[in-house]
């Protein structure tokens, strides 16, 4: 598995698509922060908040995350890299584990600009606001408005950011079985984006249906896992990490179940 991971990392390093995606998230993170800065300054209208949300991490990752899965998994079917791995004695479990690990690293890399920009923006002590719509790093950015951070808060900020990245990785781990089964980038991206919209809509039911709220809290799409801030308690952060890890494990199990005996064409 170690060799497979290194090979995937080598391939990723050579991938133009990954560089483009990183460029897109960097530009988007900057636009998101600038708009969240300009809205409370009343230099742009509040109505621009919807547009600003389009550049936020939660929206970008729901599209680009699935693209990353396509680059790492679907492309390897096209280029027969997975064929070679299996034909030369790598177990299918090792292939899945390697893909999942590299996929997680790649997601962390494309989310890094959001983490860095959020950290820098918060460090300025300025006020940021994107209206009512905010999740993930945008929520973290807008929830700590207009106050300088203390040293312990910086460490907490790092912990929250890492947890948020983990939550995103868990949410997008659904793409691993999708990509292994469907093997078509366009299907993976479309299905995951549709699913992310659906989970967003279903989140509105959580207040009306407590049972649904409790069930969804067992997944990285539910609970308050996308609303982590510097005020979030350690217990909630640990819960977010635990739920994310469990969900990733479940997705890996589903992937293994579907790929273990599948013909690779």
């Amino acid at each position, binding site marked *: 598995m170690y*060799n*497979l991971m290194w090979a995937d990392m080598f391939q990723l390093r050579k991938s133009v698509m990954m560089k483009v995606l990183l460029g897109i998230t960097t530009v988007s993170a900057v636009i998101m922060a600038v708009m969240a800065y300009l809205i409370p300054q009343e230099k742009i209208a509040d109505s621009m908040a919807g547009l600003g949300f389009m550049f936020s991490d939660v929206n970008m990752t729901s599209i680009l995350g699935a693209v990353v899965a396509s680059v790492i998994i679907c492309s390897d079917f096209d280029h027969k890299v997975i064929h070679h791995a*299996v*034909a*030369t004695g790598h177990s299918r479990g090792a292939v899945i584990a390697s893909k999942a690990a590299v996929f997680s690293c790649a997601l962390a890399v494309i989310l890094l600009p959001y983490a860095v920009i959020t950290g820098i923006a918060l460090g300025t002590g300025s006020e940021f606001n994107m209206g009512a719509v905010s999740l993930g790093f945008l929520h973290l950015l807008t929830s700590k408005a207009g106050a300088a951070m203390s040293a312990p808060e910086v460490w907490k900020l790092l912990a929250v950011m890492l947890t948020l990245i983990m939550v995103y990785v868990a949410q997008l781990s659904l793409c691993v079985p999708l990509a292994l089964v469907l093997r078509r980038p366009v299907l993976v991206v479309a299905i995951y984006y549709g699913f992310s919209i659906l989970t967003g809509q279903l989140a509105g039911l959580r207040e009306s249906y407590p049972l649904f709220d409790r069930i969804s809290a067992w997944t990285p799409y539910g609970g308050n896992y996308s609303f982590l801030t510097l005020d979030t308690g350690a217990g909630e952060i640990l819960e977010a990490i635990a739920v994310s890890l469990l969900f990733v494990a479940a997705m890996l199990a589903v992937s293994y179940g579907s790929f273990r*005996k599948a*013909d690779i064409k």
Partner: protein
Amino acid sequence: MQRILHADRLTKTYSGVQSLHDVSITLESGRIYGLIGQNGAGKTTLMRLITGLAFPTSGSLELFGHTGENALQIERKRIGAMIENPGLVPHMTAAENLRLHRIMRGIPGSDVEGELLGLVGLAETGKKKAKDFSLGMKQRLGIAIALLGSPELLILDEPINGLDPLGVVEVRNLLKRLCEEQQMTILISSHNLPELYQTATDYIIIHKGEIMQTLTLAQLEERCKHHLLIRCPQPEKLASVLEMKLNTKNFKVMPDQAVKLYDYLDDKERVARVLVESGIIVTHLSSEGDSLEDYFISTIGGGQHV
């Protein structure tokens, strides 16, 4: 000779359609096996089963003396394969593609990349991306990738597709050299039967998912050997005339009572005259001799399949 692979009654069914039926073959070390069959005959399916890309519906496979899924997976580390078409990452150069697979196989040192590129004639490709390669260059790179780690069993599906005549000769010589020097076992499929005739040491003829025949080059040459085919109602008498009057024992009486005479190929008239003078009623006398192509066609059922 070491048994490298043994397939026992392998059957593969896709959506109710049987692609392979009760296929049993044995491959021994240091031999080049030519897998011959029409499109859809089951050549690629057999290769996919051997490499673990697909699972048999029934039957069993033994690799390097080991059976069972876990053992097979471990033994596949000793295999190099190029199936259907070479799998290349298009935005990478030839060297980068080789490096990717070298890292994947855990082979240390980058020297092997240059050696293999030189071996397949791609040493001068430099920064040219694989997507800009010709089909022949892609095939060469696919062969180089399959050769990484000096596999003991090399599986090549249509490796000379798209190669220019010089490339075909180079690949042929390379495979023969690997077989002789490293005792590498090679399973190769090709539609280019004259080429396969010059490359392989053994032949496996597959048709409609079933193995029709396995034979060595010597057996093939024996069966394709040029001869005079003689038919008559009295083959025993014919045999004695050939021995007594034409002084030859270089003939065979076939199961269908036809006689194949391997002498007097350029003196058919004399044979005919002697037989007639000896009172033999000759119903058929002709010069015969098969190429691998003819032999393949006759084995799978004659011209109706062509």
